[in-house]
């Protein structure tokens, strides 16, 4: 039998002017199990709280009902007060008689009657409340960052700076990501490598950071604070501990015609290679698809020339298993396939390139040593056409429905730099809209037009036709002149839509993190929790969450790190005790609950049960991880047997409220 105390708040006159608080206290005092019922001017005040605390002690209350403002306002206040008086805080229920009664009704009799009913419903509920204790779980003070681009690097550095160990898992042989391939960065035009490579080196040198390059996440288990992650370390065929990065092997390797992915296949590398000069870690890797030794056992040159004895053809994939408290997805982006747009002739002409290829063509470490030359004949292009929104802002059938966000700015950069370096070049940019929100962004774009004389034409390109003389005929519309233009271009640059990394979808599945239809990770709240995934303990950094430029990526990466540091700084995680739980005796093991759980909080195991006839029986039953469950209750309705229930909002509690209201 519960002993319930009822406390009716006047809230000054906010409640008392419309609700006869004395009558409410009196009426509720007559309800079963209610041993004390009082009213007071301000329950949330110090003295009001003391009144509650004293009553809890004096009457030995097991439940408290407070008729006051919305629980969204003071539920925590009253729970804390109850806890201070030794009552389990979850034995407190609030009847909202201000926002949902006194403030909206004028007739005092009517409002008083409603307040009494709301009070009764709260009493009916609290009768069935059980003390809840928030579960605690420990926190492994180590973070995993998946992806070693600028987002992952920045997040890792910030976490490491705060004193927590971080592992970076990067699927490529080096960290650096897309930013390492860029030439200059807008709007300041500083050299990308100059600002990125020091950060890469810092990662390598930071004692708290371990870089697992050429590695992939294999499996993830556990939950916030307690993830266990298995990482596949792909065979490099080079001993990381021995290789000095001298590069001799990469010069002597006889297999010379391997397309160099760092330069997007515009030049070649060897079968054993270091992706680029500033790679971190600067360790060679053998491309097993091309290496003669690995393919047919004939060669072994690299092994012979390696003075460190680092080459090991027998290396196999190995696995690392590590525990983490937090996981950061920083899987970045890729350039979408533009060959599907026949009209731009990307696959027909070498002189139709993507903007990332253009970056490499203007980069001093690129295939042309930084001189802008046409890929087809190595000649200097005199007319360059940039086409915006290639594959962006389309219907889903035609491409990506979103704006890729970075193209307007990098195209302005490309156009500007081209005009600066080669003033004899005509540069056209065909745009639908020029989108330049960002600090100094529009100014930058205007400079391209006003100072550098880039021809911005509002309109789209309909067709790019390679001609026999090696030029490209660009047919486009100029919407302002209402003309169709025909431009003879030497080079066409496509601002290809970006898309999330292909590996992101499978990673999201491993992490039980949700994704939108475009395969961008979903944030826990689009405005208020933009760097967290809805899955507790999983955080989002950079492009994997949506298109963004470098400054935004770095801001988000640091924000993400702050959230991770906040989590790792805790010794214990206190959960929300209002979570779902399954009655094993009733559970059918049908998986309906797990199917609707947005957090992957429900797992199944085979359990042995003693049957009434003394036999044992093994049944598949659900288990809700209280540290992962967020308490939405979707599972409770999906469960046909009623095995699943939600603490704090149990079936019987809600029905008791229903009964009290309908009585």
């Amino acid at each position, binding site marked *: 039998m519960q002993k319930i105390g009822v406390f009716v708040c006047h809230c000054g006159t906010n409640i008392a002017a419309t609700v006869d608080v004395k009558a409410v206290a009196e009426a509720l005092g007559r309800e079963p199990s209610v041993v004390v019922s009082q009213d007071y001017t301000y329950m949330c005040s110090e003295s009001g709280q003391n009144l509650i605390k004293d009553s809890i002690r004096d009457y030995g209350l097991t439940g408290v009902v407070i008729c006051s403002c919305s629980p969204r306002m003071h539920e925590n206040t009253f729970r804390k007060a109850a806890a201070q008086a030794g009552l389990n805080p979850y034995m407190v229920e609030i009847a909202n008689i201000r926002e949902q009664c006194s403030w909206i009704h004028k007739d005092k009799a009517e409002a008083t009657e409603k307040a009494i009913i709301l009070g009764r419903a709260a009493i009916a509920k609290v009768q069935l409340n059980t003390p809840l204790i928030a579960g605690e779980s420990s926190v492994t003070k180590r973070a995993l960052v998946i992806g070693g681009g600028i987002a992952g690097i920045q997040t890792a550095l910030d976490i490491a700076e705060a004193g927590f160990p971080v592992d970076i898992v990067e699927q490529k042989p080096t960290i650096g990501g897309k930013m390492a391939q860029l030439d200059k960065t807008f709007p300041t035009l500083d050299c990308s490598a100059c600002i990125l490579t020091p950060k890469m080196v810092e990662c390598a040198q930071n004692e708290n950071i371990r870089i697992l390059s050429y590695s992939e996440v294999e499996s993830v288990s556990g939950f916030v604070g307690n993830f266990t992650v298995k990482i596949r370390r792909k065979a490099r065929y080079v001993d990381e501990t021995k290789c000095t990065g001298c590069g001799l092997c990469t010069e002597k390797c006889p297999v010379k015609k391997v397309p160099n992915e760092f330069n997007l296949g515009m030049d070649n590398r060897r079968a054993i290679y270091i992706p680029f000069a500033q790679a971190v870690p600067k360790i060679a890797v053998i491309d097993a698809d091309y290496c003669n030794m690995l393919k047919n056992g004939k060669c072994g040159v690299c092994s012979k020339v390696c003075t460190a004895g680092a080459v090991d053809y027998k290396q196999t994939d190995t696995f690392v298993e590590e525990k983490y408290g937090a996981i950061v997805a920083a899987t970045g982006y890729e350039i979408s396939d533009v060959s599907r747009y026949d009209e731009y002739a990307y696959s027909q002409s070498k002189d139709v390139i993507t903007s990332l290829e253009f970056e490499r063509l203007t980069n001093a470490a690129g295939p042309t040593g930084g001189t802008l030359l046409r890929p087809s004949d190595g000649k200097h292009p005199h007319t360059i056409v940039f086409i915006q929104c290639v594959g962006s802002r389309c219907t889903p059938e035609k491409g990506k429905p979103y704006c890729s966000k970075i193209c307007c700015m990098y195209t302005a950069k490309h156009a500007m730099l081209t005009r600066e370096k080669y003033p004899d070049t005509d540069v056209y940019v065909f745009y639908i809209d020029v989108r330049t929100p960002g600090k100094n962004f529009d100014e930058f774009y205007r400079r391209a037009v006003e100072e550098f004389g880039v021809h911005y034409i509002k309109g789209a390109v309909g067709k790019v036709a390679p001609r026999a003389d090696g030029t490209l005929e660009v047919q486009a519309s100029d919407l302002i002149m*209402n003309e169709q233009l025909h431009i003879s271009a030497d080079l066409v640059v496509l601002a290809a839509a970006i898309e999330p990394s292909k590996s992101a979808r499978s990673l999201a599945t491993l992490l039980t993190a949700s994704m939108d239809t475009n395969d961008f990770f979903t944030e826990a709240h689009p405005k208020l929790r933009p760097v967290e995934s809805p899955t507790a303990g999983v955080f989002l950094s950079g492009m994997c969450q949506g298109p963004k430029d470098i400054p935004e990526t770095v801001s988000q990466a640091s924000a993400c790190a702050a959230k991770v540091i906040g989590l790792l700084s805790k010794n214990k995680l206190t959960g929300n005790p209002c979570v779902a739980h399954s009655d094993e005796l009733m559970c059918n093991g049908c998986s309906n609950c797990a199917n609707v759980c947005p957090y992957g909080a429900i797992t199944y195991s085979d359990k042995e049960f003693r049957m009434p006839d003394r036999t044992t029986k093994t049944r598949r039953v659900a288990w809700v991880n209280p540290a992962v469950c967020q308490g939405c209750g979707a599972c409770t309705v999906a469960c046909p047997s009623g095995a699943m229930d939600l603490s704090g909002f149990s079936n019987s509690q809600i029905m008791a409220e229903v009964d009290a209201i309908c009585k």
Partner: protein
Amino acid sequence: MNDLKDRVLRMSGSAVVKCMRCGKCSATCPSYDEMEYHPHEFVYIVERGDVEKLLSSESLYKCLTCFACVERCPRGVEPAKVVEAVRLVAERQQGGNRLKPDEIPALCDPDLPGQAIATAFRKYAK
């Protein structure tokens, strides 16, 4: 609202409001120079509800119905279908036939495939 616009929208099945005004339809149009109103203008003018303006334009008969604009439109607006719908509205008016049977003999040219005339007749008459 606007009856003519509704008719054109219904007949074409085109969602002109999806247009983002990129002009790729006009950029790709082989009849561009022949036309008074270009494909993107058709879409825009229909969206504004000014169909009468288009009904009297020769542009209706300059569209080759090659569907390049439909193929290229990134937003799935299908401009050629809009043009076609406006043309049908024009031709379905009393005396709206563009090509009359007695005009055909004069058009017959040994170099012109008979199919082309049949097609033109189908396209330009009720």
